[in-house]
């Protein structure tokens, strides 16, 4: 493992370089408080992503194309499409988020940022949480905002839109977190796409089940609070445990 620079400088220097205008109460101290370092990492990831906008659009375009496959493959009848809409939306969201996972750590592993994070003396768990949060803001949230569009194209009535947005938004939090573990575990493996899906999909199935159920209830106008709460429970469990596992996996990949 290459060690350039002083370890503690890692994160603050990395993130600070791109974000000097941010007022930092603790800028002078080398060991920034937990949330501060995480916030810098989050801001850095967002800024980098907005400099490569093309990459942001890819999962969304992919999601739109998956949605388009079903009318072509099954039937253009809206009545039938409405029936399968929850499944189409969630299978599409799951695949799109899987596709987006590749961007989560790849560049940072390539240019040594992850090493710097691990050496920075900051909590790697919090940094992983920040990276995953950025990833969700960049892929999960846009997906949730785009899902109604896909739903409308499948003949779903506009009344279902809030429920669909809510379920995809909450569910994609869980997907990003579960995916962060798989992405961290497969770091450094060449052509890891198939392996990443083999690792991530089985663990994501509860999200698919609860999410599709919530969407289905949103479409039929039923009470969707119960599956939404279960979805949120999975997300909360993910928030508490996934960054720990991802941090452990990143450390292992750097050994």
């Amino acid at each position, binding site marked *: 493992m290459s060690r350039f620079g002083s370890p503690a400088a890692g994160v603050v220097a990395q993130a600070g370089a791109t974000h000097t205008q941010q007022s930092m109460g603790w800028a002078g101290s080398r060991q920034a408080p937990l949330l501060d370092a995480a916030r810098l990492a989050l801001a850095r990831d967002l800024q980098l992503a907005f400099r490569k906008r093309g990459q942001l659009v890819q999962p969304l375009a992919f999601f739109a194309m998956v949605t388009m496959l079903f009318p072509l493959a099954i039937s253009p009848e809206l009545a039938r499409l409405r029936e399968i809409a929850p499944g189409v939306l969630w299978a599409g969201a799951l695949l799109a988020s899987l596709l987006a996972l590749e961007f989560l750590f790849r560049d940072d592993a390539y240019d040594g940022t992850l090493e710097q994070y691990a050496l920075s003396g900051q909590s790697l768990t919090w940094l992983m949480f920040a990276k995953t949060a950025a990833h969700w803001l960049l892929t999960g949230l846009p997906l949730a905002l785009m899902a109604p569009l896909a739903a409308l194209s499948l003949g779903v009535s506009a009344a279902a839109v809030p429920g669909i947005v809510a379920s995809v938004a909450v569910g994609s939090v869980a997907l990003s977190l579960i995916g962060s573990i798989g992405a961290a575990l497969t770091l450094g493996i060449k052509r890891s796409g198939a392996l990443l899906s*083999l690792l991530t999909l089985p663990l994501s199935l509860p999200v698919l089940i609860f999410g599709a159920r919530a969407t289905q209830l949103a479409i039929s106008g039923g009470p969707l609070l119960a599956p939404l709460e279960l979805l949120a429970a999975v997300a909360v469990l993910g928030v508490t445990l996934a960054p720990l596992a991802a941090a452990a996996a990143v450390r292992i990949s750097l050994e």
Partner: protein
Amino acid sequence: MTWTWFHRLGSPPYIYALAARLTPWFAWPAALLIIGGLWGGLVLAPADYQQGDGFRIIYVHAPSAWMSLMVYTTMAIAAAVGLIWRIKVAHAVAASCAPIGASFTFAALVTGALWGEPMWGTYWEWDPRLTSELILLFLYLGYMGLRAGLEDTQRADRASAVLAVVGVVNVPIIHYSVTWWNSLHQAPSVMRLAKPTMAASMLVPLLMMLLGFTLFFGAVLLVRLRGEVLSRERSASWIREVVSA
């Protein structure tokens, strides 16, 4: 209390010799129990009043399904031990478990499908137990795929251990979500296998098979573990002594 016995378990030459010594103690009882259980189940036990002779597949199906979960648990515990205390032998145990567990899972799926055909009229039913079993198979395949993808043994050990532990946290969630999914989507038309008190003549062979399969797993694990230790320690000097002896 002295912990020497425990620390010795971490030594590859010791575990290699111990595994060789213990194997027959698992293999022979396993063989006797399985032969006895099969005799009891296929010949002595009466036919089921509802399912006829078809129910007899339970003597292979239920133990396989039971083992598929037990092996995963064993694998995850061994992986966690290896991850926490950095014991290489524990990682070797976890690595040896995976193909055995995947085979049991596969056997449970195949026997389940074969059982489903006469009972449900279809080979595959999206029954929660069959579905969870299928997901478990994917978990095993993912674990093995990750191990195969990482060339460095130590990294493969530790990364796959994290995956096994994550999987263990997830298995109950997957199980309950699948059960819940199924209860919502499937009409209760599928004939449920009533599980009232089983007659002793049916139950005893089943318990024998369960114990026999467990011991069989122990025996296969010990044999695989020796292979795993040999391949990991291939450049160590004690291997030369063992092989030339």
